[in-house]
């Protein structure tokens, strides 16, 4: 049982790292948002693994609230993304660097 728990935590760490990598290296704003979802899914996996390991409900309940936060995040992110694309004309994060210095 411990081995399964540690395996799942290692999987969660690997997925979180891949999500972080996507946030840093990708140009496309949509794929950056998807990479953020990868990171959130890794966190959910670690909560569920802990809940299944300890046989308690706290981790599973926290997962529910993460889903609510993720739903809000994606609704806002998509609205902002469409607004940004209409204003700047591109999804490329490096197209216009407005912060200088």
């Amino acid at each position: 049982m411990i081995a399964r728990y540690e395996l799942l935590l290692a999987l969660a760490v690997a997925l979180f790292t891949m999500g972080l990598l996507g946030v840093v290296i990708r140009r496309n704003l949509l794929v950056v948002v998807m990479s953020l979802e990868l990171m959130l899914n890794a966190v959910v996996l670690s909560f569920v693994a802990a809940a299944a390991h300890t046989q308690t409900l706290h981790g599973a309940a926290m997962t529910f609230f993460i889903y609510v936060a993720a739903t809000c995040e994606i609704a806002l992110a998509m609205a902002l993304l469409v607004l940004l694309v209409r204003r700047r004309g591109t999804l490329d994060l490096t197209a216009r660097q407005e912060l200088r210095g």
Partner: protein
Amino acid sequence: MITDVFIVSFGVLALVFAAMVLVARQPMRAALALVAHMSSLAAIYACLNVHVIALFQVLIYVGAVMVFMVYTIMLLDDRDVAYRRRFSGTLVPGVVVSLGAGLVLLRVLGPGGAVASPQPGADPFSFATFSAAFMERYWLHFEIATVLLLAGIVAAWAVIREER
């Protein structure tokens, strides 16, 4: 034993689909890879007997969040320059920083980390137990979550008004 085989198989699938999200050129392909990744995670949750969360994963993430994302992709122009050039100039530093962060997380969460001991008892992940716990212990959190959802709706509406 067979459960462990399924968990490892779906774990490998989740990793492969996550890698496809990172390297896909077209956002629609990345979104479909993300759907497959989330479905693999839902299968892992089902193997762990946490069926409530597996159901939420499919209904909320795959069924709502990702469908919303696919609709957004269809609204956008597929001749965008970001579709042709995938990676930014921070590829090498990004790989180094991500690997470093992953190693630190492995060190903190890995063997010798904070591993709680299992508590034997009745199955806490049945729908009845989950629902009763939400009504008894997590009702305040649940109400706060509804306020957060309402705030999200109002904020999205405000952004749409700004667009007009």
